[in-house]
């Protein structure tokens, strides 16, 4: 009984000290107005600036993942004389052409006559980012070609990434070109394009595209910048450790303080992005949580750097090096799939590689935040937090 009381008393004292440490952190933060400016004012300002000046981006030449869903083997009933036809000679020939195209990477072929959920499965692939294009071969595909009419192909392209819409269409045209050439056909084809996850009229494609990058870069970058010096520049830490305060309390207070700042930061970013016309399919909460987890990873990296560094200069240099690696290997400049395998593994550990897909999924596809990217970021954050606690606990502080 006595020992329980004593434990409770220790816990109460510890909590009280933690609260006071948090208060201290807020006071220290308040003295550094520049840091507050960077953390809370700069991100929405950048969003506003981009909202006012967003411009069109370029395109990519990587093979694009696609699936082909064929309805060609279904029975075609001609509307004019109600005659039935079951021609499907060109069905697999087109699939061959897709396979021959350097611009397309056929992930799977579905014969919709045999697989009734083919299109649903293909759409799930599209949502899950496994593919970018669903090429749908209509029921009268072989009939039209055989009877000398212009061929018809339907395709559903992922339009959540504006700069890749044209590239996706070009890849489909490439497969048709190969198909025509391989089968000595007259090059008359129509493509019925259906843009999936595209930005509706009245919203800016460019702005939405830019916002995905800006939000992820901003939240993680600011999280890092505001925390890289939090430990290394607090000189009286060594002296504080000569009081009953515990190291774990000091570091926890820092995390909690910056997390509360992050809540405001994420909220203000979303509000400013929405007020400038961000098209959001998913929920506000999902977007908020995605920014929060991304920013939290930034905090974890920043605090980790701060515990690791012995001087301010070291911390600044480490930050710069880390941020450069994060950006270069984020998949924005070089697609991750185009990297060597060892770099791909490394790139997938880095938080920014998950930032854009996570935010894009929520903004344009209405996906839930709780997916692979979210848990990958959570995993990276937890690893860094554990490491920072271990380093801080073992670090030698002497006055």
């Amino acid at each position, binding site marked *: 009984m006595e020992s329980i009381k004593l434990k409770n008393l220790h816990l109460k004292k510890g909590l009280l000290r933690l609260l006071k440490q948090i*208060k201290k952190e807020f*006071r220290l933060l308040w003295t550094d107005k520049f840091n507050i400016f960077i953390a809370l004012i700069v991100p929405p300002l950048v969003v506003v600036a981009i909202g006012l000046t967003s411009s069109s981006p370029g395109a990519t030449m990587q093979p694009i993942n696609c699936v082909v869903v064929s309805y060609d083997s279904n029975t075609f009933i001609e509307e004019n004389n109600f005659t039935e036809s079951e021609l499907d000679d060109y069905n697999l020939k087109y699939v061959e052409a897709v396979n021959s195209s350097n611009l397309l990477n056929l992930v799977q072929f579905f014969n919709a006559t045999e697989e009734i959920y083919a299109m649903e499965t293909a759409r799930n692939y599209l949502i899950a980012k496994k593919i970018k294009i669903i090429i749908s071969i209509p029921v009268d595909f072989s009939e039209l070609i055989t009877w000398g009419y212009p061929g018809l192909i339907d395709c559903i392209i992922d339009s959540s990434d504006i700069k890749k819409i044209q590239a996706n269409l070009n890849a489909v045209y490439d497969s048709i070109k190969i198909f025509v050439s391989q089968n000595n056909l007259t090059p008359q084809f129509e493509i019925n394009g259906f843009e999936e996850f595209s930005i509706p009229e009245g919203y800016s494609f460019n702005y939405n595209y830019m916002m995905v990058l800006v939000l992820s870069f901003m939240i993680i970058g600011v999280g890092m910048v505001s925390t890289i010096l939090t430990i290394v520049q607090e000189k009286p830490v*060594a002296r*504080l450790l000569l*009081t009953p305060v515990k190291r774990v309390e000091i570091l926890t207070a820092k995390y909690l303080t910056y997390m509360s700042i992050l809540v405001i930061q994420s909220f203000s970013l979303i509000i400013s992005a929405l007020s400038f016309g961000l098209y959001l399919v998913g929920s506000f909460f999902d977007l908020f949580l995605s920014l929060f987890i991304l920013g939290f990873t930034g905090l974890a990296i920043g605090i980790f750097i701060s515990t690791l560094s012995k001087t301010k200069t070291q911390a600044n240099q480490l930050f710069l090096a880390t941020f450069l690696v994060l950006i270069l290997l984020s998949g924005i400049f070089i697609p991750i799939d185009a990297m060597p395998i060892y770099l791909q593994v490394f790139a997938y550990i880095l938080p920014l590689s998950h930032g854009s897909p996570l935010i894009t999924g929520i903004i344009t596809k209405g996906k839930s935040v709780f997916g692979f990217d979210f848990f990958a970021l959570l995993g990276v954050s937890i690893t860094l937090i554990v490491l920072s606690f271990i380093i801080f606990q073992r670090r030698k502080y*002497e*006055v």
Partner: protein
Amino acid sequence: MEITETSEDAMVSVENLNVIFGKKQIVHDVSFNVKKGEIIGMFGISGAGKTTIIRVLTCQIEKKNWNGNVLVTGLNPSKKANYSKILSNIGYVPQLELLNLYFELNPMVNVEIFTSTYGMNKKTAKLTAEKLFGILDIPKDTWKKRVKKMSGGEKKRLSMAIGLIHSPKVLFLDEPTTGVDASKRYQILSYLKKLNQQLSTTMFIISHDLEASLICDKTAILREGRLLEFDSPQNLINSLPSNGLVARISIENLDQEIIKTIQKYPSIKKVLRVGNETIEVLMDGFEDNLPKLMKFLFENEFKVISMSRDTANFRRYFQIRIQEEEEKETKKNHIELINEGGS
């Protein structure tokens, strides 16, 4: 051997303390006891082990690096479970204020940050701070200003106040007067004495500055990790020949030859060159032998410019004691060299 009994008044008890880092022994077999309310000065040149001893007493060095029986406010710092209690019972004032104060915050907020770690309530903390600020003459108009706007002396005093804010039983001060100009140095020492008298706090002063001995009840002289002396400054001075009486003699064209000649004179215990043309002489039977020495100097036609008599201060004692140790060591090394050559 575990210390089981200590006097009620004993604030710090150290028995056979050895500190070892890797293969290097930093502190050798140090023992001393400190009573409640005493001011202890720990003096020694760099590398003497002063700071290391204090780090053991303030739980900054893990047990694996030291052995011996140590009690701080009756608690053993070798047990991690005691850390929190020991740290509640002690205060620490580092050499540099920037290690003790948040310069961007005002003194009262600094007080709040440190008192909160001891679980003190805000009201008690404020009252204690006001009392300490009063004793230390920290101007009221600076209490709400940022620390960085305070003068050097004010920062130093604020740092002392922060060290004492939770009314610790023992206060450790690291070089409290180093880097401070002469007039301020005495001011700081007098503030420390005032605090000691009014609060009965036991104080440990680690210093290169021997002037700090002026306020010390006991002084510890350390050299290369060994405790040479631990006694009151007066007792140490009295242990010198003729209770520390010295003759200060100025001689024209003073050189090593003249010093050697004087050293050979019977009853002379020590000749210290303290200036270009000045020496201080310690001797047995000071009153009888001083006139004889003067006669000897005149007979040898040394041009004596002036002569005065004085009592040695702690600085002089320290100088003599360290010199003695150095001479002992040189002799020892010399003998070892001869022995090695012989074998």
